[in-house]
């Protein structure tokens, strides 16, 4: 099980890395986030101390983040920018956590037992469960083990997909990355985990 989990995650990470390495790094992120990594690219030849009288239409949020940095020390700017980042990311985290909490309270686990006799359906069901309940990777092995009647491949798929794709991450990927990258981050691991789990399930019985 451990070897299977490691293998699947390594394959997914390698494929994603290869795919993303073929893309120029700047367009990976949505426009407003580019500034966070490369603030000096905002206004060529101009820096914060000179102020931002006209917001750059290419990077509106970047200018917003820097609009109150005039006359403030670097340390103050770091603090205010950190607070802004915390609220920005926290917003998506909270919305994702609400969705997960809703699922945890209202999703009957007995539903999964309907699929226990089919490898294809049980793998799909456990992957869906992993995405919906967003279990921490420290505890997911115990959660998977509690589904004693499901095939090992289904439990493996639950363990492999959970840390890569879940409701909170989907919301955050969509907020930070460009649409095509976010879709790749969601769908590539999902498809690979499904196929590899099925293959391992068939080969190892």
């Amino acid at each position, binding site marked *: 099980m451990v070897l299977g989990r490691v293998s699947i995650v390594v394959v997914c990470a390698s494929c994603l890395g290869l795919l993303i390495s073929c893309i120029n790094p700047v367009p990976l992120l949505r426009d407003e986030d580019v500034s966070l990594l490369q603030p000096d690219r905002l206004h060529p030849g101009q820096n914060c101390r000179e102020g931002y009288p006209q917001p750059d239409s290419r990077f509106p949020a970047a200018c917003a983040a820097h609009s109150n940095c005039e006359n403030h020390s670097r340390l103050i700017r770091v603090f*205010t920018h950190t607070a802004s980042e915390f*609220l920005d990311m926290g917003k998506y985290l*909270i919305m994702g956590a609400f969705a997960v909490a809703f699922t945890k309270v209202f999703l009957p686990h007995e539903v999964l037992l309907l699929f226990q006799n089919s490898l294809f359906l049980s793998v799909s069901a456990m992957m869906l469960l992993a995405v919906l309940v967003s279990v921490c990777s420290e505890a997911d092995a115990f959660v998977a083990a509690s589904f004693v009647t499901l095939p090992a491949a289904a439990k493996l798929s639950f363990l492999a997909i959970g840390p890569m794709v879940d409701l909170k991450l989907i919301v955050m990927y969509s907020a930070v990355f460009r649409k095509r990258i976010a879709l790749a981050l969601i769908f590539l691991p999902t498809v690979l985990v499904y196929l590899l789990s099925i293959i391992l399930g068939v080969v190892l019985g």
Partner: protein
Amino acid sequence: MAEIIKKICGVIEGLIVTVIGLYMGLLVLFGDYWRFLNPKFKWLTGATAVILIVIGSVATIVPNKRPSYSRIIVFLLFVRILSVGNLEISLTPRIHSDTGASRLTVDGAEYIKINLAELYMLTEKKEPNKMDTHYVVRGMVKRSRALDDLGQFALVRNAVFCCLADSVAMGFRVLYDGSEELADGQWVEVYATLSALTQGLPDPEFQSEGLHLTLLSESYGLTPSKIVSIEEPEIPFMFDFKEQEPYAY
């Protein structure tokens, strides 16, 4: 007017960060932290609280001139939910680790004090002597009709590895003919040895009401020599999991 509203919203953003930091700090210092997270993460929450209080205070004094209304709404809702959480402030720490001896002698037999999660993980290891050893464990009785028919009941306790949302009730089936005498939900201390189980779980997905997920050992059960009724512990969860004596119990 629009500028004033923006400035007020910028201050509110800073205050939200500060309030969340203060809440986390209070939770770590005086609150029931264990109701949310495993106490092993207290240092991390404490450090985050300090950072949030500092950056929140600065962001309140030097407010963001372009605040986001959507994140203010989401965070105000979140702060409102935190207030529903009914933070209980206590000046005395409520988690007491068991500092007594790691073994008990009862009726001439020596029992190792161990919690149900530790014993479960022990049974997953290939160790030759675990069957002859006497253990004492504490947990909650969970009964079902199918288990009653087999002369068994389940003894479970909630293990919190990370946060409460990820908790799993772990335990064993206890091979005990008098399970009718025990009430569902009753807390007991069981003095027992491990027995290899020949029958699978009668309820394959035994899930006890009120617990998120239940994990019962399929390979081993407990054969009790003594069952003692106890009060429900003030903190009923298991947070600490050791692989050798002295166990967390």
